[in-house]
């Protein structure tokens, strides 16, 4: 097997993520690339525009660590639990620094990525009408439909400097198989100028070619590939490990104060060198609890004469 674009997370981040960049760590609840986020924090990147539909715990951590200048998002909550407290502290009190926001609905933000990925001028959508959001966000505009004369809401394309996408498996060049909730991974990869892939497993190209419909991201748009098992904990990877809902609930307690948040960060982010060390700190019990029983799909034939 050729080593292709394989590298470490430290090298990938050091090479492609710069201060002031607009970055998109993909994954709609599923496969959120925590390992990449933690490495960006360790390398002390700053003034980043952090884009995600759901900032989730990963951007809450990056905001607390002072990496963020601006947050682009559509739902800034801890689903089923409550607030993202670090986001709120930064927005309401400027701790550790003031942040700007650029806010959309889910369709608005995923539409921006789609428009970026497909080089559209802008994307018209049947949403935002009647909402107060367009009054607060000058990026949401209206145009006249040239066919009916109706007013239509539009959003601009989003082309992040870097996207990080975690996948179940890819080959060493970055041809990536993804299944389960596929969120905005493909859109983010095609929209971004640089793409870092992290993967649970690196497989031979023949495995990828055995099931080409499952390849959402082709190698020629990928810049770096990192083999990073358990990269998404406390988020999850369908078929590999479940979502650590307990931790999502604990995060609410951990982040009550900026100091308590930073104590966590000192131990779990700055206190480890990489993902392997982070995983060594997780109890085996927890790992067992999060490991699902296999549920295999029926095989299909791709045969041709």
């Amino acid at each position, binding site marked *: 097997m050729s080593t292709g674009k394989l590298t470490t997370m430290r090298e990938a981040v050091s090479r492609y993520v710069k201060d002031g960049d607009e970055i998109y760590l993909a994954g*709609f609840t599923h496969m959120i690339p925590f390992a990449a986020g933690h490495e960006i924090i360790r390398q002390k990147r700053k003034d980043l525009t952090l884009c995600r539909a759901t900032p989730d715990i990963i951007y809450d951590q990056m905001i607390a660590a002072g990496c963020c200048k601006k947050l682009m998002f559509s739902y800034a909550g801890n689903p089923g639990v409550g607030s993202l407290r670090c986001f709120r502290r930064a927005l309401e009190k400027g701790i550790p620094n003031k942040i700007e926001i650029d806010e959309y609905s889910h369709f608005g933000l995923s539409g921006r990525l789609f428009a970026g990925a497909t080089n559209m001028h802008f994307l018209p959508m*049947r949403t935002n009408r009647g909402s*107060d959001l367009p009054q607060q966000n000058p990026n949401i505009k209206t145009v006249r439909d040239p066919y009916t004369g109706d007013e239509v809401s539009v959003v601009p394309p989003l082309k992040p400097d870097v996207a990080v996408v975690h996948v179940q498996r890819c080959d060493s060049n970055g041809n990536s198989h993804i299944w*389960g909730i596929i*969120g*905005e991974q493909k859109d983010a990869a095609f929209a971004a100028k640089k793409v870092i892939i992290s993967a649970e497993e690196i497989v031979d190209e023949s495995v990828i070619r055995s099931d080409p419909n499952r390849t959402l991201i082709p190698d020629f748009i990928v810049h770096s590939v990192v083999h990073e098992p358990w990269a998404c904990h406390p988020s999850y990877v369908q078929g590999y490990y479940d979502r650590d809902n307990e931790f*999502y609930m604990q995060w609410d307690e951990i982040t009550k104060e900026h100091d308590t948040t930073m104590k966590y960060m000192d131990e779990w982010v700055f206190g480890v060198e990489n993902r392997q060390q982070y995983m060594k700190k997780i109890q085996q019990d927890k790992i067992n609890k999060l490991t699902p029983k296999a549920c295999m799909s029926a095989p299909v034939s791709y045969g041709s004469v």
Partner: protein
Amino acid sequence: MSECTPSELMVAVAARELKDHDTVLVGVGIPNLAANLAKKLQAPNLVMVYESGAVGSNPSRMPLSIGDPCLVTGAKSVCSMYEQFAYYLQGGRIDVGFLGGAQIDKYGNINSTVIGSYKAPKVRLPGSGGACDIASNVKKIIVITPHEKRRFVERVDFLTSPGFVDGKEKWKQLKLIGGGPYAVITNLCTMKFDDVTGEMMVTSLHPGVTIEKVWENTPWKVKVSANLEQTPPPTEKEISALRALDPNKTYLG
């Protein structure tokens, strides 16, 4: 009538609004319970759709988030986020959507963005997520909420998701795909919306509740339908099926 908690009452009443073969955009928590209850009772072919892209889910346990892996295992289909909002929502394929929020007003407008002003928030809430898109594109919007004065306001601080905005006339001009707000179900009553004005009105009082009690808990004198009904109390069957869905009383406490 079976003894039940206010949450159980709301879920049982909401579940009755769902018909067999409906496609339902479900959130987590209480709406998820209502959809699962309907599926166990009158709507075995209900199609549960989640904004994370899971379609026709059959969850083996209660999900904590709309992106829970148990919504994928055994689902009919899973699509991307863009496809979910474009094909299913904007495509007009969803019959019923459940929404919640910190505030709802007399035209069914919902605020899930901010208390106070946007630029200087008193309390910053999570924002729209898919709510504005759901409100704009789904045929019937149902809101399940405790009947509290802080939640019902004459006008929302911030309009995240449009109800009938400031009346049916204005709403028609928006030319949205969806049908707008359909029902608000509380622990006291069910409210629907006037066909002409789009204003919220009480259509059914829950067992033991008087209209005076509704008025005491609503900051404006909410209108009353000419055909005011009494909500039939939850049956033993409804309550026992519901309790089986949430045995630890995570949501029904």
